[in-house]
């Protein structure tokens, strides 16, 4: 161990210390070896740490200080919608009557939970313009796969078994093609044109009798609204395919345009993005899926229904794709999203999008003189810059990102989408103030100047973090994925 290393909890362990308080053992005890067949009673103890409660709290507090969250500072990570995570959501999700319910309790004893789920579905139906919503998928990618499985079931039910291909734009999230593969489809890529939008000619070229669906994010991952969306819908529907909406960027169009009105047949939402379920360091998320009427029979089961003022689950769904998750979805995240929607109301959600888009356009215009702007038009909630001007000076986008750490910012998304060279993708969200945006822009401008005058300071960044750039090649070549006691 290096002297500056943060010890692992295992390295803090001392034999004989405990950090727990188990309930009293108040029943007569039997020798465990009598209760188990020979060879089934564990002999070797698992090497878990032996530490006191204060040791634990100090350890994790130290770790938390080595972590940057939205509450720590600006986090303009494009495509991830790192907005403020309201604290009321956390309180509500911890209510006994929500946090401590068993999913297999009798439906009559969980009517409040079912009511919340039902009302959340109703709200999401209105927000997306779809006909029905399921809350079962656990995250965005899970929702994508669920939606694609439904599209597959739909085509199969129509005897349309030759539809084996899913079309995705070259700017799509990586999960889109991966979800298509897991759902049993082949992926076909459709090109973007010089304006950053789906090339309609290319789309006409790739659609056909084998098209199951087109997956689209709108606004797309460049932050641009696919203004030809109705024409695209016509092309895909005309060929007998379905239109899938990746809801990752819904924050850009709340109250402005609904996927259901744009011609989409299936939509997934990321409740941990637009609807403030916290990102939790990578999860848990929640990825509800909305569908148009013709796909309702294929929804994962069970489906929540309301009958005479009572809520219950309908398991009798013969055409359902089946269950995609045990129980009913990530309820705890759904509670947070519901709380958020109820906190904002219709006019609040409208303002969310207006301010998110205003913030993004403001930053884009302020930064445009200093970086390459590949698509010079109004953006929606996010925009992309290219670092190719800086690259000529020997400063890569990765260096710019690392230099931003010295200013206390989480960097934007970098090198994505793949169709922009040295891409920098910035999403400020609506919960950031003008002062924050200005400070960040000033830091970016300073870095652009450094790239010209003093590139080493950028190339060698970060200078102020608890740790420098890490050797990722070594991590992958000789993987150490767990602690081993010496």
């Amino acid at each position: 161990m290096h002297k500056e290393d943060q010890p692992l909890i295992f390295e803090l362990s001392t034999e004989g210390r405990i950090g727990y308080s188990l309930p009293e053992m108040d029943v007569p005890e039997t020798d465990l070896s009598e209760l188990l067949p020979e060879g089934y009673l564990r002999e070797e103890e698992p090497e878990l740490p032996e530490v006191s409660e204060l040791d634990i709290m100090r350890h994790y507090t130290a770790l938390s200080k080595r972590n940057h969250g939205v509450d720590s500072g600006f986090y303009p990570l494009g495509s991830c919608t790192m907005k403020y995570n309201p604290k009321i959501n956390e309180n509500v999700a911890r209510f006994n009557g929500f946090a401590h319910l068993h999913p297999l309790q009798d439906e009559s004893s969980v009517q409040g939970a079912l009511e919340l789920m039902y009302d959340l579905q109703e709200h999401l139906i209105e927000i997306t313009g779809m006909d029905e919503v399921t809350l079962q998928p656990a995250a965005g990618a899970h929702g994508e796969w669920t939606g694609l499985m439904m599209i597959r079931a739909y085509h199969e039910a129509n005897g349309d078994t030759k539809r084996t291909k899913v079309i995705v734009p070259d700017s799509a999230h990586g999960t889109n093609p991966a979800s298509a593969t897991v759902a049993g489809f082949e992926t076909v890529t459709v090109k973007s044109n010089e304006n950053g939008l789906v090339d309609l000619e290319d789309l006409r070229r790739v659609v056909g009798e084998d098209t199951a669906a087109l997956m689209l994010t709108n606004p797309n991952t460049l932050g641009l609204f696919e203004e030809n969306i109705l024409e695209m819908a016509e092309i895909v529907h005309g060929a007998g395919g379905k239109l899938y909406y990746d809801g990752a960027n819904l924050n850009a169009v709340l109250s402005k345009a609904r996927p259901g009105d744009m011609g989409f047949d299936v939509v997934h939402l990321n409740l941990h993005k637009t609807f403030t379920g916290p990102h939790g360091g990578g999860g848990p998320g929640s990825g509800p899926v909305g569908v148009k009427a013709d796909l309702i029979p294929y929804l994962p089961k069970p489906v929540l229904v309301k009958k005479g003022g009572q809520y219950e689950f309908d398991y009798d769904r013969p055409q359902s794709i089946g269950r995609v998750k045990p129980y009913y979805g990530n309820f705890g995240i759904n509670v947070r999203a519901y709380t958020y929607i109820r906190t904002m109301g219709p006019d609040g959600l409208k303002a969310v999008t207006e301010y998110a888009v205003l913030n993004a356009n403001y930053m884009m215009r302020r930064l445009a003189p200093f970086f390459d702007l590949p698509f010079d038009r109004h953006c929606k909630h996010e925009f992309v810059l290219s670092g190719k001007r800086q690259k000529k000076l020997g400063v890569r986008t990765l260096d710019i990102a690392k230099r931003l750490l010295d200013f206390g910012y989480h960097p934007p998304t970098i090198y994505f989408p793949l169709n922009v060279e040295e891409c920098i993708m910035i999403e400020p969200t609506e919960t950031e103030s003008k002062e924050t945006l200005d400070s960040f822009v000033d830091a970016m401008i300073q870095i652009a100047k450094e790239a010209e005058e003093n590139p080493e300071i950028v190339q060698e960044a970060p200078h102020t973090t608890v740790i420098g750039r890490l050797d990722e090649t070594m991590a992958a070549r000789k993987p150490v994925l767990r602690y081993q006691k010496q």
Partner: protein
Amino acid sequence: MKHRYLPMTESDQKAMLETIGVKSAEDLFSDIPESVRFKGEYKIKPAKSETSLMKELTLMAQKNADLRTNTSFLGAGVYDHYMPVIVDHVLSRSEFYTAYTPYQPEISQGELQAIFEFQTMICELTGMDVANSSMYDGGTALAEAAMLSAGNTRRKKVLISSSVHPESKEVVKTYAKGQYIEVIEIPQKDGVTDLDALNEMIGDDIAAVIVQYPNFFGRVEPLKELEEIIHAHKSMFVVSSNPVSLGALTPPGKFGADIVAGDAQPFGIPTAFGGPHCGYFAVTSKLMRKVPGRLVGQTVDDQGRRGFVLTLQAREQHIRRDKATSNICSNQALNALAASVAMTALGKKGVKEMAAANMQKAHYAKKQFKEIGFEIAFEGPSFNEFVIKLNTPVKEVNQKLLEKGIIGGYDLGRDFADLKNHMLVAVTELRTKEEIDVFVKEMGDYHA
């Protein structure tokens, strides 16, 4: 529009519009064609103030019978366990819960290290070499195990024991459909996987055999015998395991399992009406590069200091796209943190003591039931659950129990046609002798 989450002021807005060079915010939406524009406002409930919304939702929560005010004997895959109070204090550090996936390791060392510790603890409990950073839940983790097995063996059939959790079985089947994998159920005999049937069903075309340990009926599966049969056909041996039980039971890794997957919910994660919980996924080192999901690895920085990064990312969807074997992106990181804190608090001695307490209390309850004349179905070695036979429908009994503040066991008739009027009873370390005695007595009254 003034709102506590929206810092925009009128003068900010004016200045920003000027910089952009447009007259109104509405101009920024001119690229959305009129024909798809949503006009007006969403027809949803109006916004509520913090206080009145808290009140409304408090009342909504109170309509539910929760596990804190009632005494639960319901398990069936989701358990009411000791949750060290410290867990929620750690989780409430918002540096953790308001962060995204640790793609920038220099400012995400806390999360990365916590996950590295989680991976280590899962390896220790399961007896496996490598564990990932988490999956959605136990059911989808098992589905990923089936897909990994099919890919790895290039075989398209998977056998799953009927004593695996019914909802996990359903999830495995849904995923399998996507991958054109055939899933066939192995019958159970006396509450465990029928070895004779397995011997007949297995062949060199079977990618994997999936069992649960302890299984859905609480029984300890004969992993030793299973392993011999499965590996004789070079099929993958997949075990779904409740990690709490592994404080007392010999871990599946010791029996030669290739993949151990399950849910870490029993360690510090609230039941939360079924989610979010925390899937885990552990494999032998041979399968390290085929694991789905994120992996955290140790490395050093330019000055030789130890640090952690997301590694072996070439497996993942954002790199491999349509060649990826799993599409998982978001996982259950925060719940993996919760499980880590709980496992840390319990430590080496606590996990053993807690697992033992589950066995002792369940054993005691089983004995009490037998004493007053209940028939135990599938008698044999079990962990913290067992099956009793009633002479009335379980649903009716549970309704009567709830009036006394007791949440009864799981109605097996819901999933198994031959197990009508059979109740799966879970007794964790949280149940006191008095609670058990009252439960048994009440059950006896309805049984008479």
